[in-house]
């Protein structure tokens, strides 16, 4: 039994509130997170996805289209996303049909996920993103690549092979640059990994 539509939307809004730092607003935190276009983009995706899985394809296409026009956020209704998805800035986010996102995934601006679209059949398939992963701006993941739980994909990285859990990956193609420690923020983790500087806020 999958969770109800309302509880999934609630989990998404809670995730947005955590991302945008509005959960301090108490009972109004979910309303506050609606000040961010990312929260609206996730809700539109959930609506499109719900309609898609109930077989109402033309309607789901319409909502998907609206999301692309309004927020420049091109997330296919056929994306399989666990509850707690948060999109930081929706402009340029593209996620292809069938991509699997774990619980509590954070997607930042211009992230691109999906099939590799190639004649090489070994590259058929779509990415699978683990729970609690953070995909920073411009991360690109194509083909059957899995990202371990809680890992961070750094800015403008292209991931072409599987990534273990609890690490920071960066580069083109991406390689592991360091562990992700539970206590640190993504900015700190990326900085520590990229510059070898473990100090900082």
């Amino acid at each position: 039994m999958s969770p109800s539509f309302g509880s999934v939307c609630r989990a998404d809004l809670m995730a947005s509130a955590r991302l945008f730092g509005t959960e301090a607003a108490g009972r109004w935190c979910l309303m506050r997170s609606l000040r961010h276009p990312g929260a609206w983009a996730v809700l539109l995706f959930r609506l499109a996805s719900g309609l898609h899985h109930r077989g109402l394809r033309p309607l789901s296409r319409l909502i998907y289209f609206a999301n692309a026009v309004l927020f420049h956020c091109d997330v296919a209704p056929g994306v399989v996303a666990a509850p707690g998805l948060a999109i930081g800035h929706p402009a340029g986010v593209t996620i292809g049909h069938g991509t699997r996102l774990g619980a509590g995934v954070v997607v930042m601006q211009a992230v691109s996920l999906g099939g590799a679209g190639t004649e090489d059949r070994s590259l058929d398939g779509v990415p699978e993103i683990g729970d609690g992963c953070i995909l920073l701006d411009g991360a690109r993941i194509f083909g059957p690549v899995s990202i371990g739980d809680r890992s961070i994909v750094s800015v403008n990285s292209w991931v072409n092979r599987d990534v273990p859990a609890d690490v920071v990956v960066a580069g083109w193609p991406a390689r592991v640059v360091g562990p992700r420690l539970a206590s640190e923020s993504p900015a700190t983790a990326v900085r520590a990994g990229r510059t070898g500087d473990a100090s900082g806020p």
Partner: protein
Amino acid sequence: MLPAREMTRRPRWAAWEDLAALAELKGSAFPTAQGLVDVLLLPAAWAVLLLRVAAALQRAGLGAPATLVRLANLALFGADFDPRAEVGPGLVVAHPAGVTIGHARVGSRVSLMGSVRVGGAASGRPGTPGAPVVGDGCFLMAGVKVLAGTVGSGVVLGAGAVVVSDIAPEAVAIGDPARVLRPRQRDQG
């Protein structure tokens, strides 16, 4: 009544400074009618004007209308500007598609090209020490991401640079992570 000298020094509207800076970038005479028409026919001008409207509404305590203007900016131009961002006058966003300014501080007379982002890396706490700062007179080329740290005044960031720590003033910095390449030479722009 202020002395005339003081009056001329009084800052004009930030939006006016933005249009003047854009006209300068585009080589239009400003403030002339021709220059104004030139500038207002660019999406760059309207995206920044909408940013100023949203910021003014936010300062006036009108959060919901500010959010609506922000959403309109995103729908029309693909530019996502947090109304709470502290942006100095003379901002130029040459190609607004994909440009994002989060809850960060941006100085005066800053130019941004396409797909630039200034904001924390999913830090979740606006105003924390992790929130980035861009100094006065910086020039950020296409695809620059400023995720953390302070970019000194007058810095040029080359295309695709990723800033995760402080950059000294008056320098040219490139790469991922961004490192200073050489000092900025003003006559070369």
